[in-house]
């Protein structure tokens, strides 16, 4: 038992981080460039393929430039890793890792799918099925700000320093809204295990779109469940605050104040080069992917197909998942996450950057209060429904 558990976990870690998340990071840089190009009437990278002509072929295979991320990665490895003389060496070295690692660690509680059965062994498609999913993610993900702040400080020059300071202030202001905005969700579900949360949504309707299961018929009365739909209002507010805060957490436009090129050269990573810079980059994209995954998991039913299709297609009569259900769910989950990543990119290339005071005002005066009020609103509705 122990050995099989360890082996399965190891395989899951390998598959979910190295086979799914890492390529996704690579390809979200590609998506970023292609989608931004399309939004701006350009073409984007469409050349890097297999250079068959180098080996005597007639034509290169371009594949729409799909090999661009590989070329970029190779470039990152081959470039000179330059350490300026004026930096604080130890912290300078540790900072990129501190940004990238938390983003990867949080992958472990994301449920990638339901279950698959191989050789009679039922495997849940989540690395660590723990009962504090969202809290774990918040706790770990907020560590990445240390990486950015330390990078800014260790670089020992003014632009990175300003970037680091900004990152620090921004993270603190939006972490609060992030944490508070998810409280109504947890009140509605009454649990913190992300796998169970998704399971619940598969059966009873996605959190902000409960169009089947309990969302339509109240289990107590058998009538149309108006109360559940009423709850969608505060949950939509939650979703909004949560999404915006994730944008701020991942330092993406319109909240990319820590690195904004126009004011701070490159922000906290100005003094970094080659693979260390690439690590910051990967950290940012990993955070974006985990953020999208979290939004999907909590608000859009995670891996569930929705519309009651999970129960109809993927369950046997006894109510257990069929052997291949997990794979279908994995596909559904990844599709949703990719859709969200594209949304992230879309927003980045649409909305201009906020001014710093606007950013702070938005965080502390608008979102913080709104999230607080939202909790009471949800509580009020739930209390009224329970009467």
């Amino acid at each position: 038992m122990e050995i099989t558990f360890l082996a399965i976990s190891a395989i899951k870690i390998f598959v979910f981080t190295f086979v799914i998340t890492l390529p996704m990071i690579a390809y979200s840089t590609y998506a970023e460039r292609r989608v931004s190009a399309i939004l701006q009437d350009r073409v984007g990278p469409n050349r890097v393929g297999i250079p068959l002509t180098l080996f005597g072929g007639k034509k290169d295979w371009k594949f729409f430039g799909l090999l661009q991320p590989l070329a970029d990665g190779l470039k990152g490895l081959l470039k000179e890793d330059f350490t300026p003389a004026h930096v604080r060496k130890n912290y300078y070295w540790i900072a990129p890792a501190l940004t990238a690692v938390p983003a990867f660690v949080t992958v472990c509680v994301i449920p990638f799918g339901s279950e698959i059965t191989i050789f009679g062994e039922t495997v849940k498609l989540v690395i660590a099925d723990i009962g504090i999913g969202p809290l774990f993610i918040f706790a770990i993900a907020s560590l990445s700000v240390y990486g950015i702040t330390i990078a800014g400080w260790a670089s020992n020059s003014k632009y990175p320093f300003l970037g680091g300071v900004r990152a620090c202030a921004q993270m603190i202001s939006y972490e609060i809204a992030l944490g508070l905005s998810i409280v109504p969700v947890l009140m509605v579900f009454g649990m913190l295990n992300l796998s169970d949360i998704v399971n619940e949504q598969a059966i009873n309707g996605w959190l902000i779109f409960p169009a089947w299961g309990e969302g339509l018929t109240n289990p107590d009365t058998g009538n149309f469940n108006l109360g559940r739909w009423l709850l969608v209002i505060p949950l939509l507010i939650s979703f909004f605050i949560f999404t915006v805060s994730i944008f701020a957490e991942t330092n993406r436009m319109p909240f990319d104040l820590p690195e904004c090129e126009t004011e701070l050269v490159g922000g906290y990573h100005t003094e970094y080069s080659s693979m260390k810079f690439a690590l910051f980059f990967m950290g940012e994209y990993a955070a974006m992917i985990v953020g999208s995954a979290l939004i999907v998991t909590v608000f859009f039913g995670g891996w569930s197909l929705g519309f009651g299709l999970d129960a109809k297609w993927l369950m046997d009569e006894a109510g257990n998942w069929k052997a291949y259900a997990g794979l279908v769910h994995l596909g559904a989950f990844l599709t949703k996450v990719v859709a969200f990543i594209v949304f992230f990119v879309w927003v980045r290339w649409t909305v201009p950057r906020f001014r710093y005071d606007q950013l702070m005002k938005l965080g502390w005066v608008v979102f913080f209060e709104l999230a607080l009020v939202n909790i009471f609103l949800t509580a009020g509705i739930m209390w009224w429904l329970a009467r």
Partner: protein
Amino acid sequence: MAFIKIKRPELSLSDKLYIPAIFKGLWLTFKHAVKSVRGKSIGSKDLASSGLGITMQYPEQKWDEHLPEYYRGVPALVTDEQDRERCVSCQLCEFICPPKAIKIIPGEIPSDDEWAKVEKRPKEFEIDMTRCIYCGMCEEVCPEQAIYLRQDYAVTGLTREEMVNDKKRLYEIGGKRVGLVNKWNELK
């Protein structure tokens, strides 16, 4: 004169909320994306787009037929309709050339030549394309209309030596130019 009092426009609630503006922006970029994918971006026809956005795919597609008459590409020497060298190696272009890209070694035309009257022609004529700034001064200054900026722009080479156009190459690029050149006239 009537005074018209202009009111400062006030921001409506929806302006202050930002959110409608953000959605408007998203819609705008979305429209661009749709048009871009369908190859119907504004101006894609005039700019001969490759079908995605308004971008032309360079080495495959070229802008050549859109190049204006006065386009200043590679400077090159031209011959007249009877393949005679127009250049008399007066070296005016060598001296005017701001980045000193031109190097001329003048040569004499032997006295038994049919055109001994012209006296000189270049023995060597080199233009270093790593130096040339395509200013067109050489064309401007040449008293014999012997040097012209042609429409070639894709100048590449793997070494510095390859980037120097010698006399042979210059005539190759330049080709023929017809038109009256006084020095060939016996009477003048």
